[in-house]
């Protein structure tokens, strides 16, 4: 019945035993490390449940329903399962789920918020459906230059360009890079979606188009080095764009800022007095194994006491915002929502600052802090904002 695409994993998908290792972090502290399972606590929402349901759908044992689609789309591509599954096909778990999403995309059968997300990207180049013309608005009054052959292209991404809170982060990072004397420019309203979430929502052809368009544009402008605000952009550009001929030097800003501090280009002696806990973004951590740069930055800043949550690095709990879910939003509405679990865990360390390095995590966790009524105890700050304060630019 696979009329549209050949399901690439039909010889693998039945191999999941549903042993449940994928529900745990690296140790066994908590059975709630799969964001979807943590939220719903039904076997159907666990990774194994999802794979079994996908197989049942492909075998015509169950029909497509809105609920089924929501179960599949409740996977936010955090890769905890890939990290935990003891079996050899583990590297394909997220791929198997994305392939099922892709099948739904091809059949036109996606939940309404996913449909909106993808149509908005098709039409306006961002998931919010905001006008393309507004994409550069965040930089108004900052003096940030349009990219024209500077050393670095500063790629901001959709969330940094449109989300009110993330726009502040985008600005702060720009001022920080400026202070460090870095030669960089932005694309403003010429910037387009990076496609990372589009890919994880299963719209692979749209992703290809975005990747190809971006690569063509970057090459035409002579781009060689890219620094991204979002780990999601970083992931797509570093790992996927080369498949389409896009060979650029791609940095997540934490990697660059760490280097700039090391080179003495940023003077952080102003310090930052706080007990800080760092939340690993999935697309920097598990997807790209970058656990150290952000921590090195925090350790270097005078006045910071860096603490860790019990679930950290490869065992970190996702904020629930990956795979487009910061918009599609299948995991909110409960104290069991991963973002709310995560801020409770952060608060339990006694930290008063929850440091993030991703605009998606920022919006998810900041909302969760409010929902948990922790605003006077725990503030969510982007690493760039913490560094900027230590540099005295804020």
């Amino acid at each position: 019945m696979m009329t549209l695409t050949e399901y690439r994993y039909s010889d693998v998908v039945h191999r999941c035993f549903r042993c449940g290792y994928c529900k745990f972090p690296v140790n066994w502290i908590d059975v709630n490390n799969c964001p979807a399972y943590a939220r719903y606590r039904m076997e159907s929402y666990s990774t194994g449940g999802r794979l079994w349901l996908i197989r049942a759908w492909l075998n015509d044992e169950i029909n497509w329903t809105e609920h089924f689609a929501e179960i599949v789309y409740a996977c936010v591509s955090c890769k905890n399962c890939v990290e935990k599954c003891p079996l050899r096909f583990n590297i394909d778990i997220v791929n198997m789920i994305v392939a099922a999403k892709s099948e739904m995309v091809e059949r036109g059968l996606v939940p309404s918020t996913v449909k909106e997300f993808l149509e908005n990207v098709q039409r306006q180049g961002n998931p919010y459906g905001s006008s393309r013309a507004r994409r550069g608005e965040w930089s108004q009054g900052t003096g940030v230059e349009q990219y024209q052959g500077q050393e670095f292209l500063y790629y901001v991404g959709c969330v940094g360009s449109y989300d009110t809170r993330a726009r502040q982060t985008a600005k702060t990072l720009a001022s920080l890079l400026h202070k460090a004397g870095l030669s960089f420019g932005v694309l403003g309203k010429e910037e387009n979606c990076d496609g990372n979430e589009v890919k994880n929502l299963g719209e692979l052809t749209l992703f290809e188009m975005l990747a190809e368009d971006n690569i063509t544009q970057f090459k035409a402008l002579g781009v060689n080095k890219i620094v991204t605000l979002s780990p999601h952009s970083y992931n797509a550009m570093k790992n996927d764009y080369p498949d389409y001929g896009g060979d650029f030097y791609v940095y997540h800003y934490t990697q660059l800022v760490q280097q700039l501090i090391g080179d003495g280009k940023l003077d952080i002696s102003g310090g930052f007095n706080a007990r800080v806990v760092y939340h690993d973004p999935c697309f920097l951590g598990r997807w790209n194994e970058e656990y150290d740069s952000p921590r090195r930055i925090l350790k270097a800043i005078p006045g910071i006491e860096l603490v860790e949550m019990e679930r950290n690095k490869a065992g970190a709990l996702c904020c629930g915002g990956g795979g487009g879910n910061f918009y599609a939003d299948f995991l909110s509405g409960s104290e069991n929502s991963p973002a709310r679990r995560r801020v409770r865990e952060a608060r339990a360390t006694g930290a008063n600052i929850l440091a993030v390095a991703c605009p998606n995590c920022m919006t998810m966790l900041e909302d969760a802090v409010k929902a948990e009524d922790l605003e006077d105890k725990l503030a969510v700050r982007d690493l760039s904002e913490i560094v900027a304060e230590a540099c005295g630019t804020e």
Partner: protein
Amino acid sequence: MAEILVVAEHRRQTLADVSLQMLSKGRQLADQASAELLAVVIGRNVDGYAQELARWADRVLAVMNEKLGESLAEPSQKILTSIIKERKPSLVLMGHSSFGMDLAPALAVELGAPLATDCLDLFIGNGSITATRSIYNGKVNAVYSFIPCETLIVTGRVGEFPIEDWDKQGEIEEIDFPLEEEFNYKQFEGYIEQEAGGVDITQAEVVVSIGRGIKDKEHIELAQQLASELGGVVACSRPVVDYGWLPSERQVGLSGKAVKPKLYLALGISGAFQHVVGLKGSKMIVAINKDARASIFSLADYGIVDDILKVVPLLIQKIAALKG
């Protein structure tokens, strides 16, 4: 200017408000242009309606036929064509209601008359008529003129023209219209009331209404909490019903219900007129919307420009705190 003709509509023994709105506008125009205002009402038994219409109209044509039932669009088209051809009114007015939407375009084609639908306003000057319509999501108004013609047909936006009180005591002319045509190709099967789910939003003192900005059905619980805190009910705009997140009995607006609460709290509602028309009776309107340019803000008493998912949880807390 010759006559101005207003087509009155009624359904299930009730004369539509929009007909009185159109009569009020027609009255103004007729007085301005020294024209006669004619109302036409069609049905099996329309005496009562005719009396009512005569308060505005100089003359009421009460067109009756035993064969006329509940569904009147097609017979009305035949009857009106005949009347209009005979009397040549310079302007035919009716409401842009489900009745008018079905009837006016067909009538215009049959008569070869120009048609402007869903108009916000009408002007007569220098012997010609211009009509104003709202386009592009209410962001632009367009002014239209018409080629010289015997009769112009206009439908007016529901709720846009206030009902003004008149007591014209116009003359009522009963006409027994012979209907030869049968309309067998289209059979009326009855009315369907939406399921009664137990919540009557029209009687609520506080209405917490959600729109597209709620983003996910999971979040409706938030609105429900806020409504409980304020002792109100949850209502919604059309997209929420279209997505299947709330039953249609909760819909406020043209195709939904009209509400008249003490407080109407519009959450993530942009303010399309089809919605707004249902909440105009509210004493106090508060809107929360991310988009500062949303048209709901031109109607609201108070506005907050922000994400409802951020503000509403806090609002619930604050209200609870103030209540002690």
